[in-house]
């Protein structure tokens, strides 16, 4: 993939499905000046209807299951779902909890997993680049 293929900036919607906040603050850290993915025009948007990418953190508690599904349905195609963090990818330290409906891929289809507990902002940015490639491919197919 070359930079020419990027014909628009990705907009991101962030869903916290019961995370410990560790990943959430790293997501914000990757948006703020040190890592600054906003310079590529990526930004957090206020509603899933405007988003291309769903960033999901947390292991999906039972309470959040339906809400996560709804957010997924509200996001227009083509879309990419990214899981940030171990607990969303596999359950992580919470794997045996009685209150989990997750991990995330049990609830909605996931395209990119960023592991780490929490992953560094660099890893999150790399994940976004992967998501970008995926969305391009989805676009080509159509």
């Amino acid at each position: 993939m070359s930079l020419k293929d990027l014909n628009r900036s990705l907009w991101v919607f962030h869903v916290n499905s019961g995370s410990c906040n560790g990943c959430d603050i790293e997501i914000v850290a990757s948006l703020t000046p040190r890592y600054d993915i906003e310079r590529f025009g990526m930004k957090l948007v206020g509603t899933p209807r405007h988003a291309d990418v769903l960033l999901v953190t947390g292991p999906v508690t039972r309470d959040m299951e339906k809400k996560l599904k709804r957010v997924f349905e509200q996001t227009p195609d083509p879309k990419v779902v990214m899981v940030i963090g171990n607990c969303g990818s596999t359950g992580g330290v919470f794997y045996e909890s009685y209150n989990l409906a997750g991990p995330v891929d049990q609830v909605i289809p996931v395209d990119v997993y960023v592991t780490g507990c929490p992953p560094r902002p660099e890893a999150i940015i790399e994940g976004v680049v992967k998501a970008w490639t995926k969305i391009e491919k989805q676009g080509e197919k159509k």
Partner: protein
Amino acid sequence: MNPDKVIEKKDRERKPDEPVKKKRKSNSYSLSIGPIHPALKEPIRFDLQIEGEKVVKVDFELSQVHRGIEWIGTRRNPVQILYLAERICGICNICHSTCFCIAVENIANIEVPARAHYLRTIHAELERIHSHILWAGVAAHELGFDSVMHYTWKIREKVLDVMEALTGNRITKGIMMIGGVRRDINEKQVPMVKEALEYYKKGFGKLESIFLKDPVIKSRTVGTGILSRHDGLALCAVGPTARASGIKKDVRQDEPYAAYSDLDVKAITPKDFLGEVKGDVFDRIVVRLLEVKQSIEIIEECLKQMPKGKILHEEKIPKLLAELRNIEGDGIGRLEAPRGEVIHYVKMVGKEAPYSWKVRAPTYNNLLPWGPMLMGEQVADVPIIAASTDPCMSCTNRAVVADGNSEKILDNEAMRRLSVEKTNALKRRLGR
């Protein structure tokens, strides 16, 4: 427009088989915010009754982040629990793991080496700096000052660098161990820590001029979301929220743990800076900013006074675990997290895993004060008022049962009832 009229008009338009809509008695509407909402960084649902722009009733529903951590804890050994405790809340992970350590050390009568006490203090204060600056950014974001948010998060990176150098990770650090800490601060690292502290001393002036002198921020925050001293005491507010209402409450001062007994820590109230206490959002900003300054001083003092010596009670973890397997009894850990007092209760019964583990995070106490704070305020001020207590849902949502369907705020009585029920259930299980 009179809302009754609107409904009447709608009634006229309704189809024959549609049920008749109930007329509203008053002019109040209910406004539901969350659990997924851009102004909320964490899931929580607010149910507000509003009259025009004014909030007349407040209700909130928790439990979206409940992961059953305490229950998981009863299936793991104390060293494993340290890592679980860190993930109660990613922002204040040091305080939860330290608090758990203190509780277990109480049961096992483990003596922590003096140097480890100082290291714990340093890590805790670094975390306080990180947490308060992060909060300042969130507050600016809620007020609509995104450039300020970016500025605060930029200067926050410095303390993360220090933490990464000292512990190996930016957020969850895995540095605490029962009976001490896992890594020492060596000679080479000291200048780096000092440099970061200098950086914050310089940056502090700018933060101060942004938050305390800017007329717009002042007019948005002065007089908003007032929590009176009386309400703060009655609802058991803790941490900066309580101190901003003039309650001199700080575990570091009242019941020193770690190295705080050697340091002179005084609870900071807005009186020290402004000369009076209003208990509004502005006061909470003042208290947090002053605490950043206080933390810098504490770390400097620690670096100066730190004795040499061991940092761990027992270096071999299998040996430590064997020791912990035999202990019986219950212990309590208390400490002052960035958001207020954290309490961990642990009961060990001579098995590998604890019999019971209970965590009381500061946000649990600081939820009820939302009632008096939000009442009568404008809807637009809800985000900043809610954020002004620095709520942390992931800390709180472990075992909270909040009645989401009720019309009223979950009051003390209901909480007490739940707590009594839980105690009774525990008693039954223990056969007492």
